[in-house]
């Protein structure tokens, strides 16, 4: 619904708007001066507005100046963004209890206060919409954000002033407010031109019994915002920017900006659209009562890209800055179909060393820079398994019971779990579950076998959480959330030859695929299984694999990196099992899982053998903390590994696969 024609609210009647909002059962949140800055806080009356204040911002600098007069909205963008209210810094996620082996984990039901946001600027209106798209993009969407977002009423104010850090004009988000708001105000010296954009807004305005705005008043309002557009100009060449940035991933400027960047995360925390979070675990002294909490995090903190075993995908500040900038201005388009930046300039003003994102963009992706070649497809869909493999939505926290355990290797254990949750029982090969023991971190674990009445998880004890899981006694319960992600596209290989390459623990996620292929064996041509492991002692499912090797309709060969004299099998790297193979690569659909570097070597060898990238499927490991694409940790270029993967086709990943620091 677009805006209606304006009415006029005399300045001294602004109080009435507040009263009307409160009468509507809402707490009013708006701008007010605290500690030398304008912040958004709860207001009881217009008297608390920053009347007579204006603000000046420059890179790394914000100053509030008393200029007098009665205008309340002549300050520019404050440090606070509305995400503090739609996506709070700290949100309780789950409560859990683990007593005598019994486990209960439940989500904390979000409580959404009925708020009215007063003073929302055009760029912030855009930011609210962008964040809403992001928080609903996952298979689940974010319940907490949705509740808060829906409970809020937006009263926008069109900017009458701008500052040196503004660039909404370039990002196409302002300064005019055109839609997506309930009410919009244009402040004039003697009052406000009031327009409404939704039925709810219209009702409220009607209740104020205002006269229509005079043509002169409307004209002044229009001229005012036009002047702001004029003043800001067009500082960023946004047209074609996503492509130019994608093409500039190796620009030397990344290293130069990293020398100034403090990686302090301020830019991401003040950004109105940045949504990344981390999960914190708490418990009582006995580990009986536990809880998880979601807190704002940032791609600038080291832990953000860390995965099991302390490996880290973005160790250098250069990688972290590149991740942030390319996400905001480029891969955001791939993920959510819009820019991630609204041009509010907060990241410029609140950077402690005044790094100006506009300057960096001009240096890294100038308007005249070449766009191509595009290193990955524009749409993540191309990287996903076919739609036929729709993800089953993880319903709730299901309870599973340990029925049996098998020690596979010194540090790896297979748990057979009984579980009656229909969603989990419907899991596809290659999907994973989030495994929660109250008081412990919540790791993503691939399903290593589907059973009629449950599933198996094969877990390597690399940290306290996985150690606790692999040490569970028989009969103990754990909580599962899932199944998550997109699994192996089995149907892709109907009528074709199948090559499966597994490295180390990578065999676990492939096991359900093997099971499925065997149950549908006639649908496939030749099926070849190549297994690699570090040493003979590190091989998984040894008896099972030997049994498979005995089958006539399956070829199983294995090899280990190193071995003692007692080992009479093959020694070498897994690719040596097939690099001189004579089978016809064009007929092959390949499924690969193992350490990323091993998969790179395998993909290269398969390519040489004529296996098409679109028929080569890999499963990636990243820091998957939420499992549904809302925490941001597992991003790889345009992809959320947890949501768009973990299974990808080589063609779909394109240049994003194996690129350092991405």
């Amino acid at each position, binding site marked *: 619904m677009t805006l209606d024609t304006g009415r006029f609210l005399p300045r001294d009647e602004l109080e009435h708007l507040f009263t009307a909002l409160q009468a509507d059962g809402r707490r009013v949140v708006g701008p007010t001066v605290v500690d030398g800055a304008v912040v958004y806080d709860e207001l009881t009356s217009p008297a608390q507005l920053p009347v007579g204040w204006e603000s000046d911002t420059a890179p790394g600098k914000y100053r509030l100046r008393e200029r007098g007069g009665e205008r309340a909205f002549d300050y520019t963008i404050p440090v606070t963004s509305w995400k503090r209210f739609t996506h709070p810094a700290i949100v309780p996620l789950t409560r859990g209890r683990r007593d005598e082996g019994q486990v209960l984990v439940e989500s904390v039901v979000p409580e959404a206060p009925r708020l009215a946001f007063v003073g929302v600027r055009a760029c912030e209106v855009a930011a609210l919409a962008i964040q809403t798209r992001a928080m609903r993009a996952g298979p689940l969407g974010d319940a907490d954000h949705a509740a808060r977002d829906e409970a809020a009423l937006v009263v926008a104010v069109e900017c009458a002033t701008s500052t040196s850090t503004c660039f909404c004009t370039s990002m196409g988000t302002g300064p005019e407010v055109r839609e997506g708001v309930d009410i919009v105000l244009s402040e004039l010296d003697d009052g406000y031109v009031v327009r409404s954009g939704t039925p709810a807004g219209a009702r409220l305005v009607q209740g104020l019994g205002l006269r229509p705005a005079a043509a002169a008043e409307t004209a002044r309002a229009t001229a005012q915002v036009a002047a702001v557009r004029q003043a800001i100009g067009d500082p960023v060449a946004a047209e074609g920017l996503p492509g130019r940035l994608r093409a500039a991933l190796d620009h030397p400027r990344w290293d130069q900006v990293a020398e100034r960047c403090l990686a302090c995360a301020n830019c991401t925390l003040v950004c109105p659209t940045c949504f990344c979070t981390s999960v914190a675990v708490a418990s009582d002294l006995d580990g009986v009562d536990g809880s998880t909490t979601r807190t704002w995090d940032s791609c600038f903190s080291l832990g953000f890209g860390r995965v099991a075993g302390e490996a880290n995908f973005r160790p250098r500040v250069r990688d972290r800055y590149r991740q942030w900038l390319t996400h905001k201005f480029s891969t955001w388009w791939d993920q959510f179909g819009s820019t991630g930046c609204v041009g509010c300039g907060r990241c410029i003003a609140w950077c402690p060393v005044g790094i100006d994102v506009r300057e960096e963009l001009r240096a890294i992706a100038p308007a005249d820079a070449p766009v191509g070649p595009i290193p990955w497809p524009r749409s993540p869909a191309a990287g996903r398994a076919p739609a036929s493999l729709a993800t089953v939505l993880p319903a709730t926290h299901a309870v599973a019971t340990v029925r049996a355990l098998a020690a596979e290797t010194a540090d790896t254990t297979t748990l057979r779990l009984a579980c009656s949750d229909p969603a989990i029982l419907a899991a596809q090969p290659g999907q994973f579950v989030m495994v929660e023991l109250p008081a412990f971190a919540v790791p993503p674990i*691939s399903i290593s076998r589907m059973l009629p009445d449950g599933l198996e998880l094969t877990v390597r004890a690399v940290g306290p959480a996985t150690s606790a899981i692999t040490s569970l006694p028989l009969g103990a319960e754990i909580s599962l959330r899932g199944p998550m992600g997109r699994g192996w596209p089995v149907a892709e290989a109907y009528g074709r030859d199948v090559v499966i390459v597994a490295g180390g623990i990578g065999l676990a996620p492939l096991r359900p695929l093997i099971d499925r292929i065997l149950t549908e064996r006639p649908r496939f041509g030749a099926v070849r299984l190549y297994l690699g492991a570090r040493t003979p002692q590190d091989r998984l499912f040894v008896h099972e694999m030997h049994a498979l090797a005995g089958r006539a309709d399956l070829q199983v060969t294995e090899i280990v990196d190193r071995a003692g004299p007692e080992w009479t099998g*093959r020694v070498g790297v897994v690719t040596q099992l097939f690099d001189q193979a004579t089978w016809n690569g064009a007929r092959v659909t390949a499924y690969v899982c193992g350490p990323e570097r091993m998969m790179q070597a395998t993909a290269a060898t398969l390519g040489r053998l004529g296996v098409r990238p679109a028929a080569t499927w890999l499963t990636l490991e990243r820091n998957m903390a939420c499992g549904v694409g809302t925490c941001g940790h597992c991003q790889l270029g345009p992809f959320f590994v947890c949501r768009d993967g973990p299974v990808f086709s080589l063609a779909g990943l394109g240049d994003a696969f194996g690129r350092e620091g991405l």
Partner: protein
Amino acid sequence: MSSSTRALLSKTRFAAGMSPDVCKRLAALAEVADVPAGSQVIREGEPIAALGVVVSGRIALRLNVPGVGPQTILTVDDGDVFGWSAVMPGSRSTSTGTALVPTQALMFERERLLAAMAEDCELASAVYQRMLKVVARRLAATRVQLLDLYRVGHAS
């Protein structure tokens, strides 16, 4: 025995793509060796007597690690080569080759092979091409093994 060595050689991967003529001339240099499991075909640090091509079976190439004992770093199977340094002037074996199972191999006595290749450029280039492939493949594999990929990461 030349005819049988020729038959054996021609069906190995080693001879793949080799012109029948060259294959014939090379086979003439070969002697069939039947290696019982456990016996050694080359010894680390010792001069190499012959170049070997595995017809069937498996040979483990091992390095002795003080305090740990012999460690297998690579196995060679049907069609693979061992003792490749035989074609390098005056070089010694870089590892010890032990048959893991009863293995049949074609052995090319070093002096005869080098002499023949000195005479016969076509033969020499066929052999050297294949040697280069073998060495390149092993180098690539060694690089990946060095990374010890399976050691860290991956909870599942």
